[in-house]
């Protein structure tokens, strides 16, 4: 495994499958009476959030605590950052405190990359979303959710998503989730189609490893998973589309449209959902909608990433995944793996 997780594009197919398989193992911890492993005992992880994000921060925090890490939450609001302290100074302060990993959410694209490559800090860096660039753990949890639903929890082990058809709908231009998903799903062999009005597609999207369409109705019948993205209301002031009503009519997912999808196809959303605009309540509350599963799976994925970056034994995990063995990480073995590293 690599030392940092900055971009979904950095993951090889084997890296990605290893994370998904490890997350499957981590998910079993949630089924235990005591949902905790001692793997990262004595390790300090900082959640460095320069941008509001309750869901992602809590998900990382839950993952870190289930692995017994010492957790420090840092939010920029009301901190020294709001008094003008730079990212570099903040990073070096954390370094001086002996931090082992930094989970960073930042409004500026590239900030986690700078943190990982500028020599400001020695800790592992995990990108929890940067600007409109990347959100790799979101893509991983989405892929994990797809694999479980479309292939199966146990039968999916060691498998990628070859041949699965995924449609991503909405504000692609401003979406780090879309970018991360296109990169990762392509690596995993899925066929991705982006659907949006031309104003919400980036220049150069034709170079991406995916198809592009302006017509949702034409794409839906050939879709195994449709991922609806949130359209931020402030975009309306910048003339990306005429009205909320028109957007909803052309790109929103309602029950009628959902019915055009294959019977076992699923509906995904990274949240938070704006019901009535990009997705109707009927769809959001249907059995096909995986929003809450995605939240649950997010914790398992983040546990897997933290485990592999900070304490994991790759060969052991890969071997166990291939063998399909049941939870090899008893509390003892996981702890040992961590200490051996």
């Amino acid at each position, binding site marked *: 495994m690599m030392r940092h997780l900055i971009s979904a594009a950095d993951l090889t197919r084997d890296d990605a499958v290893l994370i998904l398989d490890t997350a499957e193992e981590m998910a079993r911890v949630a089924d235990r009476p005591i949902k905790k492993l001692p793997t990262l005992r004595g390790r300090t992880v900082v959640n460095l959030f320069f941008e509001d994000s309750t869901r992602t921060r809590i998900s990382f925090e839950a993952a870190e605590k289930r692995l017994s890490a010492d957790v420090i939450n840092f939010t920029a609001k009301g901190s020294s950052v709001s008094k003008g302290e730079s990212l*570099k100074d903040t990073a070096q302060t954390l370094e001086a405190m002996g931090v082992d990993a930094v989970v960073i959410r930042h*409004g*500026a694209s590239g900030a986690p990359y700078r943190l990982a490559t500028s020599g400001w800090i020695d800790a592992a860096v995990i990108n929890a979303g940067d*600007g409109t660039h990347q959100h790799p753990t979101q893509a991983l949890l989405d892929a994990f959710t797809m694999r479980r639903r479309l292939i199966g929890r146990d039968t999916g082990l060691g498998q990628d998503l070859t041949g699965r058809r995924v449609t991503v709908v909405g504000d692609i231009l401003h979406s780090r989730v879309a970018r991360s998903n296109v990169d990762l799903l392509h690596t995993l062999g899925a066929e991705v189609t982006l659907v949006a009005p031309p104003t919400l597609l980036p220049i150069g999207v034709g*170079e991406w490893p995916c198809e592009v369409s302006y017509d949702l109705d034409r794409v839906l019948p050939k879709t195994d998973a449709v991922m609806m993205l949130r359209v931020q209301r402030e975009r309306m002031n910048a003339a990306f589309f005429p009205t909320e009503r028109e957007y909803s009519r052309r790109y929103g997912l309602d029950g009628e449209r959902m019915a055009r999808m294959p019977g076992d196809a699923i509906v995904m959303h990274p949240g938070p959902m704006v019901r009535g605009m990009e997705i109707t309540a009927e769809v959001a509350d249907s059995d096909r909608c995986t929003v809450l599963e995605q939240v649950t799976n997010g914790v398992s994925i983040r546990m897997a990433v933290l485990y592999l970056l900070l304490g994991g034994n790759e060969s052991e995990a890969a071997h166990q995944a291939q063998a399909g063995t049941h939870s090899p990480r008893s509390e003892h073995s996981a702890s040992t793996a961590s200490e051996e590293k």
Partner: protein
Amino acid sequence: MSKILIRGARVLGKETQDVLIDGETIASVGSGLDAEGATVIEAEGQVLLPGLVDLHTHLREPGREDSETVLTGTRAAAVGGFTAVHAMANTFPVADTAGVVEQVWRLGKESGYCDVQPVGAVTVGLAGKQLAELGAMHDSAAGVRVFSDDGKCVDDAVIMRRALEYVKAFDGVVAQHAQEPRLTEGAEMNEGVVSAELGLGGWPAVAEESIIARDVLLAAHVGSRVHICHLSTAGSVELVRWAKSKGWNVTAEVTPHHLLLTEDLVRSYNPVYKVNPPLRTKADVMALREALADGTIDCVATDHAPHPHEDKDCEWAAAAMGMVGLETALSVVQETMVETGLVDWSVVADRMSARPARIGRLKGHGRPVEAGEPANLTLVDPAYRGTVDPAGFASRSRNTPYQGRELPGRVTHTFLRGRATVVDGKLA
């Protein structure tokens, strides 16, 4: 004043000649000149150029002396072979009054390393709303002839038209920073495949080109001179070429970094590559080189933009835009234009001295290397190869994209009106 004999240099890169400097002027140019009483500089293999002239330098004084001062900036200019620079107006306070431009001009005089010709702001406070006192700046001791809101575009068509018309009274020129503001809101790099990949706000080529198109039409309409700062796209080149084909009074410049660097470097998220206008594509770079070679682009201008370390040692979004360029400009031009066979040294002299001096109506600079002309001269060793080490820069700032990169050529001597400001590559 003492005599200096430069012996055996290739004058403008063509013929081997001796050049005798007597006092502030060139006394004679020829073969086997008498060296009696003169300090002799053996210049075999070196190229003698008229002193370089920069139309676009940010000296930061007054207001940001932590980045650069007139003294440190002119020292950097001398090291780079420049004998005159135009100091941009985006200082604090803005150079939009006779008082500020005179202050900059006097600081240049006192520095003694390089003539400093202040550029006056077009509008008060660079705000784009009200014309600054262009006439007063021209009538001041500084004698301003170039006006620019550089750093900001004069985007109001009426204000731009009025400025173009007004400066005709004293043969001035408006130098436009072509950037349509609405099309570049949130822009952080060239818009295209790479910006989409990196999630950085796109700065589309059309934002530059649409302003150039408008301004060349305006300049033609009112019969005035317009100069386009730092061209960065192939489309901009085509527009300038078209305007010139019409016989309109349009000139343009390109920076050394836009002749060499491409947007792919931004993948490092290293803010040393963050510049305005942004680094573009390889195709743009090639178009700019060809346009400089064929004269569509009139001159090279450094857009020397010094920033303190902390303004660059941060995440991309927070970083200041710009890079220093005075001390590396000639080397980059040698690598991209001379060593590629696009131009010879006489063309370099034209694009880096004669034409910028003519655009700025700068007397005593950009003159041919002939007897009776002011001894503003630059001696270059083109065979030199060296690795750029910003620790040795004369500039107060170090934000160069070339750190650790090997570049050809070295300015060995610079002469300002017969006085050596640089000797053997070091400040005199």
